[in-house]
């Protein structure tokens, strides 16, 4: 009996184990071959396990000419929450207060965002508001229920406000398209191509590498190298900021260009904005005035007129003109000089900046020739610099000129230019009459080192002969000598050539007696020009607000530092004189 019972027990246990194993095998077969439940269940299963992710790619970096990084992508953290979880834990208020303290935001607003239990996802700081690593670590340490961090690729500009108008910024939306500056114009290169990954997940929601169905590698954006030198840029920006403060000007802008190549070394505009936080900035501050603001250049324009007349041979630099003691009636309309002058040579017309003298030179040259030369200098058409929003300026077609136009254009009125166009005129004079194509992007390089684009110095035209250019350089050098309008632009040890400009601003019904544009355009050194600089101040409110008094010193501040930085050799005579003075003082 006992033996029988033992046998029964053995078979029973074996049967149970076998049944259990059969059940497991059946379940495995059922799950593995996805039997039963119909297509809907299978699809749901597939969806749960399927991973389809866009492989994020960072935008290319932007470098200055010395390889300093000006813009790059960094991963920062966004504070997000699951309101359902937070509310169900009864800690909405505590979470709001803690997060508000961390984000330095209003706790009421955050509480409103959290207190929506029907939602499963909200951005606590608002979309695009990120926190740094330290703050993220602190938040994680708090262990707030339902609050979590999410990675976000953010475009960062380590130099802050510096170079903001040239660089532009990147939108926060998913396309991450560049807006403004190089970011916009070179978006096609900088943006890169997103990748795609299709794979499966395991029970812990980890990707199974061996189940990858498709993997399209992302193509990172190409890097853009600018011609800008960020130290030169810094010097220009600092000088502009000081000038705006001292002269209580509305705005100011400056460009530094290499005369022989057309490379832009600095392009500064004030007021500026922070591209890291562009959403809180005024639209007016985001305007790159160097290329998108047209103004009547005033007396700086006289150099183009005199250069044209000298090139045509209608005048010589020693030829004299009667400057009518300050008032000249031409076609029954008066034209005034700032200071009354008698008879002046062409050289002195430039040095003293006589309106009447310049107008008489232009009349002698004639409408048609003047127009042709101005077109040849690039007035009235965009320079083609690789930045968005460039204005082409204003030069009326010849048939639209009145009988007075020739005298008004000669003094920089009835014509509007951008600062870059004005600088181009000066550069062609400083560069033996050769107009170079201005450019701000030097190279675009793919991540594998392949050069996708390279800008070489390009000749854009030859408006005047080299001899005329040389003569003009000598005339412009006199402007910064004693008795010239630009003597405040002198740089110790260097010869400077340039032209001052003070233009009344056009207002409704005529020209303002109070508001003006003060500018100085110059190059350094005169014998072998290396860099040309233009400085423009909008509505300076200093007691004397002429270009020579207001903009000349800004030119000097910028030029005196960058010639040292760029190691431009000084004039030999000037150095020798300086050394002698030093020796005498020591004795």
């Amino acid at each position, binding site marked *: 009996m006992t033996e029988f019972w033992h046998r029964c027990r053995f078979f029973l246990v074996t049967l149970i184990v076998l049944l259990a194993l059969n059940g497991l095998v059946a379940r495995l077969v059922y799950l593995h071959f996805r039997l039963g439940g119909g297509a809907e269940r299978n699809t749901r299963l597939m969806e749960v396990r399927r991973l389809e992710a866009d492989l994020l790619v960072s935008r290319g970096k932007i470098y200055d000419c010395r390889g300093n990084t000006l813009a790059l992508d*960094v991963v920062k953290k966004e504070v997000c929450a699951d309101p359902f979880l937070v509310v169900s834990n009864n800690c909405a208020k505590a979470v709001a207060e803690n997060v508000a303290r961390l984000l330095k935001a209003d706790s009421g607003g955050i509480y409103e965002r959290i207190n929506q239990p029907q939602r499963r996802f909200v951005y606590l700081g608002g979309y695009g508001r990120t926190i740094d690593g330290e703050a993220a670590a602190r938040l994680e340490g708090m262990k707030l229920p339902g609050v979590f961090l999410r990675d976000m690729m953010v475009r960062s500009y380590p*130099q802050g406000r510096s170079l903001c108008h040239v660089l532009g910024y990147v939108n926060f939306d998913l396309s991450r398209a560049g807006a403004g500056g190089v970011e916009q114009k070179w978006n096609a290169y900088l943006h890169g191509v997103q990748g795609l990954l299709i794979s499966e997940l395991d029970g812990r929601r980890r990707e199974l590498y061996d189940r990858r169905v498709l993997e399209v590698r992302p193509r990172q954006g190409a890097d853009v190298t600018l011609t800008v030198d960020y130290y030169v840029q*810094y010097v220009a920006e600092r000088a502009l900021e000081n000038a705006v403060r001292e002269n209580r000007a509305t705005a100011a802008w400056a460009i530094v260009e290499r005369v022989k190549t057309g490379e832009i070394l600095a392009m500064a505009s004030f007021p500026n904005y922070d591209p890291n936080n562009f959403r809180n900035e005024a639209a007016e501050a985001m305007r790159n005035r160097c290329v998108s603001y047209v103004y009547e250049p005033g007396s700086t324009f006289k150099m183009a007129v005199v250069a044209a007349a000298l090139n045509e041979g209608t005048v010589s630099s020693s030829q004299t003109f009667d400057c009518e003691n300050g008032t000249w009636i031409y076609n029954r309309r008066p034209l005034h000089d700032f200071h009354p002058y008698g008879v002046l040579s062409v050289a002195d017309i430039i040095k003293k900046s006589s309106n009447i003298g310049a107008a008489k030179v232009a009349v002698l040259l004639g409408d048609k020739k003047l127009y042709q030369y101005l077109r040849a200098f690039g007035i009235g058409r965009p320079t083609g610099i690789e930045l968005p929003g460039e204005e082409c300026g204003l030069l009326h077609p010849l048939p639209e000129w009145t009988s007075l136009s020739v005298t008004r254009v000669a003094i920089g009125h009835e014509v509007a230019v951008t600062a870059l166009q004005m600088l181009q005129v000066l550069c062609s004079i400083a560069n033996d009459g050769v107009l170079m194509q201005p450019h701000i992007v030097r190279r675009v390089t793919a991540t594998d080192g392949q050069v996708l684009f390279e800008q070489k110095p390009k000749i854009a035209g030859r408006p005047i002969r080299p001899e005329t250019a040389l003569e003009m350089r000598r005339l412009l050098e006199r402007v910064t000598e004693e008795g010239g309008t630009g003597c405040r632009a002198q740089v110790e040890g260097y010869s400077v050539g340039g032209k001052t400009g003070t233009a009344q601003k056009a207002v409704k019904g005529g020209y303002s007696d109070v508001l003006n544009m003060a500018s100085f355009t110059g190059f350094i050194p005169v014998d072998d020009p290396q860099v040309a600089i233009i400085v423009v101040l909008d509505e300076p409110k200093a007691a004397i607000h002429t270009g020579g008094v207001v903009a000349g010193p800004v030119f000097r501040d910028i030029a005196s*530092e960058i010639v040292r930085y760029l190691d431009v050799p000084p004039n030999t005579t000037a150095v020798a004189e300086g050394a002698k003075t*030093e020796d005498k003082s020591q004795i």
Partner: protein
Amino acid sequence: MANKNRKKRIQGFVIPMPVVVILITAMALLLAYIGLDVRSKALGAKIKSLELQQAELQRSYDLELWKWEKMKSPSNIEKMLSQNSCAMVWPAEGNIVRLRDPEAIATVAADYKPQLAQASRSGKPAFHD
């Protein structure tokens, strides 16, 4: 009649040799398959973790680069200098010696080597030209 040797008789069912060979081969193949599968899975996991590590390193590199660029920006350097009551100025023109002729550089370098402020690691003086 002698009794049959009972020990020489084969008791029960004997699996034929070919079947044994087939079974052993199948087992070997199965083990090899399992081994390869485990190995490929391990490699996959390693690749995955290296991918994640690379992405993480790239992120930290970019972050450090960003911090470094911020630190060495001219405005920050100037701020730091002023905080430490330091002021940097360019040397006076009279204190700068510019050597532009390569032959002159070679001659002068030998004579004035100890006086040159900047010298490269190789011991040769460095010139700004």
